[in-house]
């Protein structure tokens, strides 16, 4: 049963990913992304990392994805023709994507190797301790960065009003 | 209804200047009302709003609950059966003539046995049969106009009439009478939206002026006839709105004011001039009228309530019924809120007063009448409605003494049992028993009778009143001692019905016309055919198929309606009206309507009736009399409602004196099964009645 579930999740995730990179239809892209993100959350659950799964849903599905859809809906009017992705910088995009992929593989290969996934043990107390203990400065810096970003957006878009 | 004004609490504006209606939280936070005050104010208004709705949720709803859901017409409904007779006549003869010739028409019809009982029993001889004929084929405008020629305000009378037509209806004998009065109302409701194209000013061709004193039913009827004849008519009304007893006497729950005044407006459009708030003898002198007008009709009606002459009847809290009705109808308030009210009297005015007392807030309403409950002069259906609403009837009790407190306010009433109302000679002479009842009431309404008050009107005209204050006048041509003055309505006939007053109005108008055109008022004039029809015993409805039953008038819920002046009767639908019109037997037209009652009556099963009953086309296709079985009893002809079957006098029992035959008509009608009558009874009827009863 668990094997079946594992491969089911994998199938959904890979399909979602393929849809995301192959389609030109923005809404289909969003659906693919949603499927992918949900199956990732499923993986977290599969490995017992409930908190991570919930956080994934909360932030990515409930936040990021919604933001994307809202952005699409405000830019395009749904009654008009289908919004279609068009990109003139195919080559540059490929380079950036490959570089990012390499960076991720290179950076994470030491941390998460096959068979060593052990996020389950951590739990919320551990995460909490980590974030508000040793990693507090980093946490605060990231928070400050986000705030600065928000203020910057306000200044750029609606500052004059 | 208007409760909202009462229970909307003030929203505290002590610390905030926000508009009172604002209920949203944020308004305070987003608008200028910032800070703690705004915050607190906003929450306070939220709580207020919740409080109001919670209070609403726990008060009893005030909506009308319809007692019966109307079944809609099925898709196949293509109109009521249209009568195509096998006897060669298809049209029901309509009684149409001006008032001048109408009496002759009725007398002829009666003499030739062509007068339908509904028409004969109506004081104004309204052609109800013709109305039903139009109604069955959906010609509502024609139906309305036909009825209006005689009863001048079908919409109004369709709500308040005491319908003697239905009492005489032949269908009483078979099952239930036709709903003639409700059909007036249906016709009015169909006519009202389109009436603008029919109601037109009539030309004034005669150059003569007639003044009418009083805008009640009688005055309006006379005015309508005279306007049609081309006279210039002006009505003087002492109240601020026209309608007379219809307006201030009949409560709004029976007759909504917009209907009455809508129909009076039609008369005004046709040329009747009405001057309100004008009291003869006060605002205009009678001499002035005599000088200005060529003829005068006094139709002032009855204005004063009679009092029984018991001790304490001048105490504060004792009132005449007419004043009481006027107060409750005009203002919806008669000063009896929360009190116990006793109405003395057993007539329709007493019932109206009692039901009005409930509606203006009385706590308990008693009705005491001399007559026992079987003999009550009030119409039984009104008594029944009053009982439904919670009026306490105390029949067989006469007034003895009004009990007063030190400040001369009513505190109760002592009643005495009444043994008999009339003496051997039939005169009013009640005898009382020895049992006394004391009721604790704060208001007493006297509804034992009404009298006329004509002193101001006749002063200076040469007319004299008799010692009881009545105006001596002729009761068939409605003349008075002074040639140019006529009198009609209840001030001549005494208390009666609206339709009877209208009938006198027609007669008075005829007299005025004869007078003004120089003819003799009474010579070679056909008098009204006043017929008395026996009351039918209630028919046995056990085996009557539902399609034959009368359309049921829906009523509003008694507990609810007794609190305000909402309509009591809710009216029939157009579909029910069509079906009801089709139920009419077209009495005395000599046209077979295929009712199949002859086949059901025949004791020897020798009559075969075959009827086609398609929508839009109902006709008798076969009528067969098996002479080998027939015993010549004549029962079929005896009961035939239309007179299509007649006895020829050629058979052996024809010499037999039929008046002495004893047979029970109710017994002789059988269930349709087993007889040789075919054809469903008006398929449409089934549909409109839903078959669910």
């Amino acid at each position, binding site marked *: 049963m668990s094997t079946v579930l594992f491969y089911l999740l994998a199938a959904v995730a890979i399909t979602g990913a393929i849809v995301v990179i192959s389609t030109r239809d923005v809404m289909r892209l969003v659906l693919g992304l949603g499927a992918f993100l949900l199956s990732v959350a499923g993986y977290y659950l599969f490995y017992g990392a409930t908190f991570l799964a919930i956080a994934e849903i909360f932030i990515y599905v409930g936040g990021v994805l919604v933001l994307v*859809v809202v952005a699409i809906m405000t830019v395009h009017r*749904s009654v008009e023709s289908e919004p279609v992705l068009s990109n003139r910088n195919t080559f540059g995009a490929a380079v950036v994507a490959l570089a990012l992929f390499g960076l991720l593989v290179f950076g994470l290969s030491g941390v998460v190797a096959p068979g060593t996934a052990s996020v389950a043990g951590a739990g919320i107390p551990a995460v909490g301790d980590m974030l508000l203990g040793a990693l507090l400065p980093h946490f605060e810096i990231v928070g400050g960065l986000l705030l600065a970003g928000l203020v910057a957006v306000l200044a750029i878009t609606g500052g004059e009003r | 209804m208007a409760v909202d004004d009462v229970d909307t609490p003030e929203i505290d504006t002590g610390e905030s200047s926000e508009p009172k209606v604002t209920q949203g939280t944020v308004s305070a936070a987003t608008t200028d009302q910032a800070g703690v005050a705004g915050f607190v104010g906003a929450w306070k208004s939220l709580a207020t709003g919740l409080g109001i709705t919670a209070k609403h949720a726990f008060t009893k709803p005030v909506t009308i609950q319809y007692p019966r859901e109307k079944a809609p017409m099925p898709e196949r409904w293509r109109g009521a059966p249209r009568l195509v007779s096998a006897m060669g006549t298809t049209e029901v003869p309509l009684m149409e003539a001006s008032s001048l010739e109408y009496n002759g028409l009725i007398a002829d019809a009666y003499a030739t046995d062509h007068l339908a009982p509904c028409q004969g029993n109506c004081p104004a001889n309204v052609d109800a049969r013709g109305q039903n004929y139009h109604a069955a084929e959906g010609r509502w405008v024609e139906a309305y106009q036909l009825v209006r020629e005689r009863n001048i305000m079908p919409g109004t009378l369709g709500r308040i009439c005491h319908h003697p037509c239905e009492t005489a209806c032949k269908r009483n004998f078979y099952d239930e009478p036709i709903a003639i009065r409700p059909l007036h109302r249906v016709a009015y409701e169909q006519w009202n939206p389109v009436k603008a194209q029919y109601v037109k000013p009539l030309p004034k061709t005669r150059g003569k002026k007639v003044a009418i004193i009083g805008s009640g039913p009688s005055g309006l009827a006379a005015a309508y006839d005279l306007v049609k004849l081309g006279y210039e008519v002006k009505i003087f009304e002492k109240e601020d709105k026209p309608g007379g007893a219809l307006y201030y006497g009949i409560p709004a729950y029976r007759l909504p004011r917009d209907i009455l005044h809508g129909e009076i407006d039609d008369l005004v459009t046709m040329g009747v001039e009405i001057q309100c708030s004008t009291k003869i003898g006060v605002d205009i002198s009678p001499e002035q009228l005599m000088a200005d007008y060529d003829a005068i009709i006094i139709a002032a009606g009855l204005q004063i309530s009679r009092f029984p002459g018991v001790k304490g009847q001048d105490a504060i809290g004792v009132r005449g019924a007419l004043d009481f009705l006027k107060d409750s109808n005009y203002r919806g308030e008669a000063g009896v809120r929360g009190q116990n009210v006793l109405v003395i009297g057993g007539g329709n005015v007493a019932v109206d007063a009692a039901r009005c007392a409930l509606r203006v807030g009385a706590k308990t309403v008693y009705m005491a009448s001399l007559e026992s409950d079987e003999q009550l002069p009030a119409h039984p259906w009104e008594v029944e409605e009053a009982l439904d609403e919670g009026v306490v009837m105390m029949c067989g009790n006469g007034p003895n003494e009004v009990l007063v407190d030190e400040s001369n306010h009513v505190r109760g009433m002592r009643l005495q049992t009444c043994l008999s109302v009339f003496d051997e000679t039939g005169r009013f002479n009640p005898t009382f028993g020895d049992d006394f009842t004391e009721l604790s009431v704060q208001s007493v309404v006297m509804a034992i009778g009404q009298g006329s008050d004509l002193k101001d009107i006749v002063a200076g005209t040469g007319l004299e009143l008799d010692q009881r204050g009545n105006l001596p006048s002729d009761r068939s041509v409605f003349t008075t001692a002074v040639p140019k003055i006529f009198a009609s309505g209840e001030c001549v006939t005494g208390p009666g019905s609206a339709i009877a007053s209208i009938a006198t109005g027609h007669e008075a108008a005829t007299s005025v016309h004869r007078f003004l055109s120089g003819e003799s008022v009474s010579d070679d004039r056909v008098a009204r055919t006043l017929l008395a029809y026996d009351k039918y015993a209630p028919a046995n409805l056990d085996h009557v198929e539902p399609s034959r039953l009368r359309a049921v008038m829906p009523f509003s819920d008694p507990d609810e309606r007794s609190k305000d002046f909402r309509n009591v009767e809710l009216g029939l639908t157009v579909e029910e009206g069509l079906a009801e019109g089709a139920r009419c037997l077209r009495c005395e037209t000599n046209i077979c309507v295929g009712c199949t009652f002859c086949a059901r009556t025949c004791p020897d099963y020798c009559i075969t009736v075959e009827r086609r009953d398609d929508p839009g086309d109902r006709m008798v296709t076969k009528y067969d009399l098996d002479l080998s079985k027939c015993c010549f009893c004549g029962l079929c002809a005896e009961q035939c409602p239309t007179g299509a079957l007649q006895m020829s006098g050629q058979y052996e029992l024809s010499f037999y004196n039929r008046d002495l035959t004893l047979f029970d008509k109710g017994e002789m009608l059988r269930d349709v099964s087993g007889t040789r009558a075919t054809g469903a009874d008006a398929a449409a009827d089934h549909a409109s009645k839903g078959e669910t009863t």
Partner: protein
Amino acid sequence: MTGYWGGVVWGLGAGVLVGISTILGVWGERKVAGHIQKRYGPNTAPVFGIFQLVYDLLKLLTKEDIHPKQARRGLFNIAPLFMTTPIISSLVIIPFAAGWAPLDTSIGILFFLAVPSISVLGVLFAGWSQRNTYASLGGLRGAAQMISYEVPRSLSVLAVVMLAGTMQPVTLMGEWRIWWLPVTLIAFVVYFIASIAELNRGPFDLAECDSELVGGYFTDYSGIRWAMFMMSEYGGMTAAALFGSVVFLGGTWPLSGVLGVLVLLVKTVLLVIAFMWAKWTFPRMRPDQLMATSWKVLTPMALVQIVIVGVVIAWL
């Protein structure tokens, strides 16, 4: 292995629960609305008009499932699922009896706050896929509102989590003490209001306001798909009321066992009635008022509540 099957059974059960709550909710709503407006509400059908629901349900089920010509079929078809599924799955962490929840997890409260937020996607997809202006506007409004109100809602729940020291609903309900109620009253009020907005119900029903947007994000839906939107609304209301009574009102307190379940049910029903009460009392808000309420009123209130709870904890 049994876990999976348990999940399936529970999913079906929760679905049935949502269905029942929808049917009863629609009837209750019409009754409450009727009485508030001094009417009777449904009353001609048998048994106080309850059978009205049966009629309505049959009508909905047999109604034609209309697809607008211009709609995006795929998205149009699955959008209602995005609305109902999260609501149904969020019911999994509710402790229906003292000491028992279908899924007894240490972060149940976070789960409840996070999973229904997926239904924002449903609103957006529905609004987008119908390809008409009303629906798009409704979808956008709904999304903006639901995202904004997640903030005060989560913060208000945080107050009780601080008091209990756990995010596990079962433990929290066991820990609950009656004096928490006055202490967390502000949080409860904030939770109540924010929940109404999360559910897109009046007076926050800007996303579907039928007088302006003709139904908003479900303008073009009919039949069973429309019923699924109704299910998400009434199921969501039931879920919010269940969660509210567990977190703020002590769930099965003061009883346990079967009687405790009854207590929880009564609290839930009362809360649901309060939701309806609010809907039929207040007029619909303007979009700017809506946002201001969330950011300028409810969020500060929730923060004040957190401070209060912090002080109380320190004082203990």
